[in-house]
């Protein structure tokens, strides 16, 4: 793993054990956050007829929900910085439940905007970010796998929610379905309950106290071996560590870490991702309409999306495993840029696909590329900024991505309406993503080189200060050596005296 320039004092995350339960909770939480806005689209036709509105007015519900989920990222980050992941996710689950239950009793479309769009969207935002953050706290060596598994929640939840929503709708109408969906969303609270808090500070303090105890006892034993420097040395070490901890605590307590905007890796990630999201979601939105446009029937068109979801489901954990291997992990940023460019190339080649078989092949590759990008989306950010600053980083990134995510499909729609042909939308999405991938690749190459240089400088500094430390370390060794020789001498004398005796 390439060194990041500000590794905080994160003492060994568990990398297993309860961490896998946390991954399961994050799976559910992230799954709801991504899949729910897409899942309730089934109800829109009925609600549109009920309130007598146009299609675009209903589409606002989705847009508001998506905008709130991404735009409330910083709020999420602030709350997690202050209170930790668990209370925030439980609060998020409650908000989602309240939002949907109140939506069941709505009497106008504006009330739906508020209940479904705003309140539920906010609840989902409070689910998404903390889930990703807590994975960074529980995992280090196996983090890519954990991220890949947790992100796989999105396609699995989508495949589950789609038929479930249809079943609920057929049996209970849209009002009853919203009521029951509110209860189902409360499972996010269950996921939150699994997010047992783990703080790196506590772990290091505990081991420290035991170490300190040992040191104190050793001092008592080798009294003659103690030089003035060593105890102060030990005390200095503990003191600086305590000070560092307090600084870290202050940083954690500070609301949102805006100093990230000076962080080179963060800026690269931000620009690359903001660009990428301009072409990320539009092809999914328009895949089924495109299929119908070239003459494929409705059910086969819907099946294309199912193929995409299934391939996506498998691709995410697999990408996690690949990203965790010792060849890829140090160069994970390149892998990420490659998958974005691969995704873009798929879109560029889509207009060449003719007939249903061509579209099936496109769906398979698209699902693969989509899964690869999503699995590494947060892993690469964690890799660049480190687990301690990730909390603020993810909030800032999501609010920046919010704009392009919302703009992507409407721009695609405008292109389709202007030219009457879907291929320009695919070309635009493909071009944007290939550009983003190339940008990330080049900038990360530059970033790796700069990091390597900084690491060399840091090591050189350490080498300079080492001889001084070595001197101080030598003295106690010598003096304890003195202690040993004195006892040996005494032993020899004893033997001699014994012999004499």
């Amino acid at each position, binding site marked *: 793993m390439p060194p990041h320039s500000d590794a905080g004092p994160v003492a060994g995350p568990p990398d297993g054990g309860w961490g896998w339960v946390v991954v399961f909770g994050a799976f559910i939480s992230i799954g709801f956050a991504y899949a729910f806005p897409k899942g309730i689209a089934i109800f829109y036709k009925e609600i549109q007829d009920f309130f007598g509105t146009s299609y675009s007015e209903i589409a606002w519900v989705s847009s508001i929900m998506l905008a709130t989920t991404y735009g409330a990222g910083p709020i999420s980050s602030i709350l997690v910085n202050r209170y930790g992941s668990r209370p925030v996710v439980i609060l998020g689950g409650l908000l989602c439940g309240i939002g949907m239950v109140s939506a069941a009793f709505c009497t106008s479309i504006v009330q739906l905007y508020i209940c479904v769009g705003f309140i539920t969207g906010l609840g989902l935002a409070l689910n998404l970010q903390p889930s990703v953050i807590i994975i960074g706290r529980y995992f280090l060596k196996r983090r890519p796998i954990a991220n890949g598994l947790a992100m796989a929640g999105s396609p699995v939840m989508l495949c589950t929610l789609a038929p479930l929503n249809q079943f609920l709708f057929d049996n209970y*109408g849209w009002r009853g379905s919203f009521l029951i969906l509110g*209860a189902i969303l409360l499972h996010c609270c269950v996921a939150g*309950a699994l997010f047992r808090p783990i703080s790196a500070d506590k772990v290091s303090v505990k081991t420290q106290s035991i170490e300190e105890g040992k040191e104190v006892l050793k001092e008592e034993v080798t009294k003659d071996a103690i030089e003035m420097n060593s105890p102060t040395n030990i005390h200095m070490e503990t003191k600086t560590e305590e000070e560092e901890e307090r600084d870290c605590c202050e940083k954690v307590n500070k609301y949102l870490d805006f100093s990230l905007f000076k962080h080179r890796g963060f800026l690269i990630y931000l620009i690359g991702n903001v660009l990428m999201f301009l072409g990320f979601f539009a092809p999914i939105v328009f895949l089924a309409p495109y299929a119908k446009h070239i003459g494929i029937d409705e059910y086969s068109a819907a099946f294309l999306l199912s193929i995409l979801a299934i391939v996506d489901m498998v691709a995410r954990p697999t990408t996690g495993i690949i990203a965790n291997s010792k060849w890829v992990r140090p160069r994970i940023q390149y892998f990420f840029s490659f998958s974005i460019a691969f995704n873009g190339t798929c879109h560029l080649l889509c207009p060449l696909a003719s007939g249903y078989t061509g579209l099936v092949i496109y769906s398979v590759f698209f699902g693969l590329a989509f899964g690869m990008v999503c699995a590494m989306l947060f892993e690469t950010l964690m890799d660049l900024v480190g687990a301690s600053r990730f909390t603020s980083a993810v909030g800032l990134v999501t609010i920046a991505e919010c704009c392009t995510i919302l703009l992507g499909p409407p721009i695609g729609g405008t292109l389709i309406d202007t030219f009457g042909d879907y291929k320009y939308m695919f070309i635009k999405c493909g071009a944007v993503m290939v550009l983003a991938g190339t940008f990330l690749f080049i900038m990360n190459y530059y970033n790796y080189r700069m990091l390597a240089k900084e690491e060399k400088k840091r090591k050189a500094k350490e080498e300079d200060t080492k001889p001084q430390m070595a001197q101080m370390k030598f003295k106690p060794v010598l003096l304890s050596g003195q202690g040993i020789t004195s006892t040996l001498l*005494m032993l020899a*004398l004893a033997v001699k005296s014994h012999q004499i005796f």
Partner: protein
Amino acid sequence: MLRWLSFVVPGESDVHVEKNIFLGSAVKIELSCRLADKHSHMKILQVTWKKGNETIKHINKTEISWGIQLTVSENRKLGSYTCTVTGEKEFSVVFHLQVPQIAGREKPVVSYKGDSAILICESRSYTPIAWTWYMTNGSEQIAINDSLMLDKYVIDKADANVTHLKILKLTEEDGGTYWCEAAFELGKSKGKLKLKILSLMVPLKPFLAIVAEVVILITLIFVFELYSKKKEKRAEDEKEFDQIEQLKSEESNGVESNSARHRKV
């Protein structure tokens, strides 16, 4: 307004070919049947155009196609017209002239007591002259007159191609089958819709069941966490105690051995 419509269907031997033609308004129509290319050299003995039992005079358009011209201006003229060609083999083609079909809704519309429901019928390709709504009372179909019951039924006639029936203040009796009937120039056509009325208790039961399940799960998780924390703390205290004991014993051993040697000396 009369328009010309022409349909040609190639006939295949031993295969009964049917074609549905929907007529929204009165038209002049020409129907013809033609031999498929592979049978074009078949010797023709007889060609007949029939509607039911009545034979219609046809014209020979070409060597291998025969047609009839009709002015469909009233309901009586709709029906099934058959072209039968007898030669070495016999084949026939049937044209079904009918009014446009109205698609209802297969799955019932679900709504709740006290709420309102909207039933929609549309006929996009052919514009009907008028729409009428019927509700079934037992086995009878009763027309819904919205001007009589203004606070119960509202029929929206904004768009000629679409009709909305809004039923307010729903009760249990409002459930059942509804028909929307579109009147065209040449006849009427009906679409079927079903309305299901539920009480609020119906979705409330699964809702409460799921909420109870969530509460139980959360309680179990927290109880398990408290229990495992207690276990951990106990284990840690024991470990620390052991460690301190170990260090103390190491120290005392060292002192003892020194003093022993001293004593020996």
